[in-house]
């Protein structure tokens, strides 16, 4: 009985949490899409500021990680492909895994660490310092003012970062391909382009947008639900990272399954 109760309670809490994320995302969507038609200005300058820190600031670390992951993929792939005498397939293996899966996923993990946690810390600190209350007393809605620009920035920057990560991953695979598998850089990139179809890239980019929305929703929700006291900010930040990683992987699973079952045979 206790076990079923625990499972039931956890399920209800989980659903309630997803509901709160949906409410926050809905509020942000309203602020971005509907409110401008009602004469409420939307601050693009804030969204651009966020986009710079979320996107441009992440380029060096995303580049490095994607390059390494591409090389690792090539090494691991070659280990098996060599046995089959199909070492030349290493380019297509890296290209497909990077664009469909690891490009979006590794980018999401980096962005969670850099920006999801920062959203939670920023909003959490504002909550503790009564700045969120101050916004409300000034008739400025926190969702409109703080959360919506973050959603816009993420929805734009995640696919951009992911595209870059895909490219760097392929380049990382190329490092192995050129030095150990008899490719030239030109032939490696040609093999990559031959292996990819547009669908591979698009499914990856659609996932990256979804990841971006999940990361923003979780980061902001954790920030807004910060309790009293500065130690609560630490708790929110940790929770934002852990929950974001879990939800990103869950969303990844759902979308990958969806794309698999809807793929043209």
């Amino acid at each position, binding site marked *: 009985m206790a076990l079923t109760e625990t499972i039931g309670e956890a399920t209800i809490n989980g659903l309630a949490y997803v509901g709160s994320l949906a409410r926050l995302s809905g509020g942000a969507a309203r602020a971005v899409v509907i409110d401008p038609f009602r004469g409420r200005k939307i601050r693009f300058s804030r969204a651009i500021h966020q986009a710079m820190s979320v996107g441009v600031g992440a380029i060096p670390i995303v580049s490095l990680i994607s390059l390494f992951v591409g090389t690792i993929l090539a090494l691991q792939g070659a280990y098996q492909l060599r046995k089959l005498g199909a070492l030349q397939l290493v380019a297509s293996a890296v290209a497909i895994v990077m664009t469909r899966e690891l490009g979006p996923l590794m980018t999401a993990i980096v962005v969670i660490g850099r920006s999801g946690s920062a959203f939670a810390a920023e909003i959490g600190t504002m909550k503790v*310092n*009564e700045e969120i*209350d*101050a916004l*409300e*007393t*000034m*008739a*400025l809605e926190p969702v409109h003012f703080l959360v919506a620009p973050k959603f816009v920035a993420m929805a734009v920057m995640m696919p951009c970062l992911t595209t870059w990560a895909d490219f760097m991953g392929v380049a990382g695979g190329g490092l192995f391909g050129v030095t150990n598998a008899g490719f030239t850089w030109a032939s490696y990139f040609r093999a990559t382009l031959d292996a990819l179809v547009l669908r591979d890239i698009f499914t990856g980019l659609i996932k990256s947008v979804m990841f971006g929305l999940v990361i923003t929703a979780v980061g902001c929700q954790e920030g807004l639900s910060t309790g009293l006291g500065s130690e609560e900010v630490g708790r929110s930040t940790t929770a934002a990272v852990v929950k974001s990683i879990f939800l990103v992987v869950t969303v990844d699973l759902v979308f990958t399954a969806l794309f698999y079952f809807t793929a043209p045979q």
Partner: protein
Amino acid sequence: MAMEQTHEDDPGGVAISVRNLRVNYGEREILHGISFDVPAGETMVILGGSGSGKSTLLRTLVGLEQPTSGEILMRGRNVALLSKSERNELRKKVGMSFQGGALFGSMTVGENVALPLREHTPLDDSTIQIVVRLKLDQVGLSGFEDYMPAQLSGGMKKRAAIARALAMDPEILFFDEPSAGLDPIIAAGIDELILKLKKAFRMTMVVVTHELASAFLIADRMILLDKGNIVANGTPEELRGSKQQRVRQFMDRIPEPELNAEIDYLQMLTGENPPERR
């Protein structure tokens, strides 16, 4: 009684009227049906010890907490019944200075003061800059536009917060513990600023504090809250002359026996009988 032109629509010159206000945090009732009026153009000081419910009262007045029952009439309208857009319109006429200042750490002092103007008025940038300079000048912070809040001292932060609260030329100004955490000289400076604003603008002000000296200096009327009830409501002279035991204890700073048990503390907060322990 001082009547401002802007308060003409308030019946009887009452800026805020609170009727039988009850506020709960979860199961626990914090305010037990309190009623009072704040006359327009006057300064009302809400006194009370820690846990008396004075902060909750202030948060409810500015709409950060929802009342469980009762009415808050502001400019003649029941705040609880307003739609979201009506409430936002009302909030533009109300300023609030928070205990810690609550300045936005990522913006300069000038941007903090300019924010409500940028968001709510069609004023162009150069006009906003002039208004910002004017407001900072009123609180004695001329020339600090480009400072970040973290670079300011405690007293300056509070002044900047007051400038931000003044930005929209509010009819009612709320202060949460304006002199808490400041040394006596800086605190006296804040009191002086409040008096100056009162004299210059004849604004309605509601000040929550537990600092007696400051309260008696700035108040036109005072209420003393204790365990979520109003135990005294009158002019500073009336409160000073009160014979009521609870008022005397507060005025004469007579300590209470220390609370050691959690249950006693919870009872002190709410004045309720403790629930059965689980």
